[in-house]
């Protein structure tokens, strides 16, 4: 049954975090979905027509709104969930401000149809730009449908700053996923343009819900952790270190059932993974945390995405400690391979000077060794190819022309001085231009894989993959989607050192979604940037002489050799004149 909606007193209203509630289409959907969940729905259905800002609706089977309250629901600061500010300490609902519906109504064409339990029929209201247009009876089963069309139709300036419809839809999927994780006993269904994207029946456990979302195989790999402390309850599903991502997008925080962002929880997770992950990678995890309502401030930000814990430190140590338990059992092969970053501090200062020199000069051993029997082919031919994995003595080369410094920079003498190239930035520039060329014309070649790689993407990544699939193929990826959200990698762009194809693919997809797109950067542009950024060599990668050669040659053949796609310099030049001057040679 419907609870009565009341107007908040002006004092209470004024103390509730004010500001923009509906900043983007995603926020509108989030508010409407949260209302459905607050109404105690057992099943929610979200339908999207083309794009969120074009039209969406959320239908639930919850308690409904009494016919007499329908118009009140559209008034500011009218809510059935809170009477005074003190009630915030007992808050059990996602909403509490009575601000969402009026805010959405003001910038859209909205229709609410509701039939509370016990009513014979449903009632509807239709609102346009905040003005009531129509009210009447309708047919509907128990529950509420809120339909939002033409968002921001009356605020054209605002429309200009919207994310791409695809990006907004992916973000929406991530949000619905998060609430589906929050409430496994509620069924969730999503339909986009008449096509069903998912239909998750109510299940009994968090892990079953995870299996619905990510597939059985992936869900089985997740580690479980549970804990209780000081009135708090915690459950977690933790990704293996190999599931770590280059962004925090793999993290879902559900605090008192609310989907929130939390740097504190994110740090606690990172802390728990310790050296299982190299720098710059974020564990993927779902965290369900219940804290007493009076120990949590949800009234921090108008979008309610942020929360404040009364006792940050306790929460941090509780989460980090609980997460660490299953992680300590992880054993190699999951340990981090040393030497990626900062592994070199212990080296004596002269180390780089000698590093490039041959290790042992066999021909100079005191003992004349018999030459190996001249079997065909000679071992030298087979091993001299440079791909032999051993750090075996390289054949003594003539005076090296290029040096790698700290596995980060390449030193190349040029006429009148020295050029110092940043290997990552330079490679990024090269790959970026190659990617642009491939995306606009000649398709790149794929190196086939003997052992195709199965990757479990997130729904959002999978959505994006469907969207950018043809472009990825242009870059040289050979992918075939298996049952969503799993994809098979049959081939990777050739000419790259792809250590971990699945991870590279996920990083590239995540990279496309990062940051706020601007008008001039298209999807293709962002894909090229993300590809270049994630596929490029990093500081810490040892390059062979041929690789350094190719890098320098190709850098100076690009259209803008001076900077990487983000505008960072790719090289610095040191003039002999400058050196002479500093040594007092004048």
């Amino acid at each position: 049954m419907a609870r009565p909606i009341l107007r908040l007193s002006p004092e209470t209203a004024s103390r509730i975090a004010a500001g923009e509630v509906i900043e983007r289409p995603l926020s509108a959907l989030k508010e409407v979905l949260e209302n459905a969940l607050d109404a105690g729905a057992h099943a929610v259905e979200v339908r999207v027509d083309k794009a969120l800002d074009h039209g969406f609706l959320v239908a639930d089977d919850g308690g409904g709104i009494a016919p007499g309250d329908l118009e009140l629901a559209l008034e500011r600061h009218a809510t059935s969930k809170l009477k005074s500010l003190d009630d915030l300490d007992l808050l059990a609902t996602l909403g509490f401000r009575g601000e969402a519906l009026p805010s959405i109504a003001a910038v859209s064409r909205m229709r609410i149809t509701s039939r509370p339990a016990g009513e014979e029929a449903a009632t509807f209201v239709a609102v346009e730009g905040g003005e009531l247009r129509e009210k009447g009876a309708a047919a509907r089963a128990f529950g509420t449908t809120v339909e939002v069309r033409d968002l921001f139709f009356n605020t054209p300036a605002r429309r200009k700053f919207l994310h791409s419809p695809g990006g907004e839809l992916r973000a929406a999927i991530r949000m619905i996923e998060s609430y589906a994780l929050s409430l496994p006993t509620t069924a969730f269904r999503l339909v986009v343009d008449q096509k069903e994207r998912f239909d998750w029946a109510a299940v009994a456990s968090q892990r079953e819900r995870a299996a619905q979302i990510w597939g059985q195989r992936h869900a089985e790999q997740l580690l479980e952790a549970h804990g209780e402390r000081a009135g708090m309850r915690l459950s977690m599903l933790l990704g293996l270190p190999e599931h770590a991502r280059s962004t925090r997008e793999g993290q879902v925080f559900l605090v008192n059932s609310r989907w929130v962002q939390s740097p504190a929880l994110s740090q606690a997770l990172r802390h728990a993974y310790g050296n299982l992950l190299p720098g710059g990678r974020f564990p993927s995890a779902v965290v369900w945390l219940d804290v007493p309502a009076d120990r949590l401030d949800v009234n921090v930000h108008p979008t309610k995405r942020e929360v404040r814990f009364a006792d940050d430190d306790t929460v941090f140590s509780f989460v980090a400690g609980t997460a660490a338990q299953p992680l300590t059992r992880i054993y190699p092969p999951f340990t981090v391979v040393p030497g990626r970053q900062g592994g070199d501090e212990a080296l004596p200062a002269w180390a780089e000077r000698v590093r490039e020199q041959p290790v042992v000069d066999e021909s100079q051993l005191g003992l004349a060794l018999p030459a190996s029997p001249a079997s065909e082919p000679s071992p030298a031919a087979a091993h001299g190819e440079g791909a032999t994995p051993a750090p075996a003595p390289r054949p003594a080369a003539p005076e090296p022309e290029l040096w790698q410094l700290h596995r980060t920079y390449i030193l190349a003498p040029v006429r009148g001085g020295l050029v110092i190239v940043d290997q990552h930035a330079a490679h990024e520039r090269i790959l970026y231009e190659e990617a642009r060329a491939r995306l606009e014309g000649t398709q790149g070649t794929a190196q086939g894989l003997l052992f195709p790689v199965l990757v479990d993407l997130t729904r959002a990544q999978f959505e994006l993959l469907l969207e950018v699939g043809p472009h990825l193929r242009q870059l040289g990826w050979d992918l075939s989607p298996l049952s969503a959200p799993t994809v098979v990698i049959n081939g990777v762009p050739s000419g790259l050192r792809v250590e971990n194809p699945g991870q590279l693919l996920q990083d590239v997809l995540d990279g496309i979604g990062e940051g706020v797109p601007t008008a001039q950067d298209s999807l293709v542009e962002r894909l090229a940037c993300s590809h270049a950024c994630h596929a490029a060599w990093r500081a810490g990668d040892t390059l062979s002489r041929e690789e350094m050669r190719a890098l320098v040659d190709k850098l100076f053949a690009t259209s803008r050799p001076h900077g990487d796609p983000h505008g960072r310099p790719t090289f610095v030049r040191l003039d002999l004149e400058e050196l002479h001057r500093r040594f007092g040679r004048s």
Partner: protein
Amino acid sequence: MDLTIQQGDLAFAVGRALGSVQQKSTQPLLSCVLLEADSKGLRVTGTDLDEGTSVLVPCTVRTPGKCCVLARHFHDVVRKMPKGALTLAMSGSQCEVRYADGKGWSRFPAQPADEFPRVPDLKGDMRVTLEGEVLARMIERSAYAASTEPARPQLNGVYVHGNDKFIAFVATDGHRLARTSRKGAFGELSKDGIIVPSRVLNSVAKFANEATSPVEMRIADARNHIGFATQVGEYQVQVYGRLIEGQYPNYEQVIPKDNPRELVMARTDVIEAVDIVASHADSNTQQIRFSLRDGKFSVSSATADFGAGEQSVEAEYKGENMEIGYNAKYLLQILRSIPTESVTFRLKTALSAGVIEPVGALAQTDEDMLCLIMPLRLPDAAG
């Protein structure tokens, strides 16, 4: 410690032990070799914890003892000393080397030996014996195909497995695969093979060819360490290493059994063609193209930066026309590892794994080899 040793023997031992010493070690002791004198002779050991080499050389030991000296420095000096007898003794905290003829001496700062990592003791464990040249050949035919990327450590080694009929060495980086086998009874290996780091095998290959006795592979019962022991003349050489843990991919499953298109060519002809044409290929992708048209075969490549080239090769080909891309470097490595005059390519589609095999029996008729290569999908390829 006090002993007399031939300069050549000492230089050999230190030189070989040095092969397992990492230049850029963070632990000072790991830049050293360990010298141990006892009634058996002088044992010189170098290690980086993942791999170690230890050489026992005959000498006259008057007082047993041990110490550590900086590996490279010691080697650099000793190998230049005049041939003939040397005496080696501790003088305070220094290791002193004197020419027996009295003409000269050197002293090296020495470190106490107690902290030096212990060589795993592989005495009572599983043993497999192979002739040195057989072992060297099997390493040479497989190890090049192993991966060097740390992400999948299992692929950084050579998978050695067998049963009572054969032993096989397999390596792959996921782009190509090399497998070589030899008949014989190797039932010890049948449980599930072992993965030996290719680094360790490359150290082994260095002495396996000179071995004057069969090489004994000793595998720790816990299957975490392996040792290779043999005799090189009077020297007893042992290389040991940590095995790679984990499951090797089920490679047999990816070996195509029914590739219908068969192409037979003289090996040196393809090598020549690929080598020349690859000069026009992109330096990273190394992409070249095989064209099979009307019973004719040619190799070509074209890039904006490096121009273009084509060379035809005499070949027997039965099958439909097809174009297929390959990484020239992978192809050359495979072709160079095959000893026979002719080679067969067995292909199916431009996207699926190709088999490259020797034509006819190998010189050692109880041995066999097979290579796989994944194509580069050409932009115009179907599928």
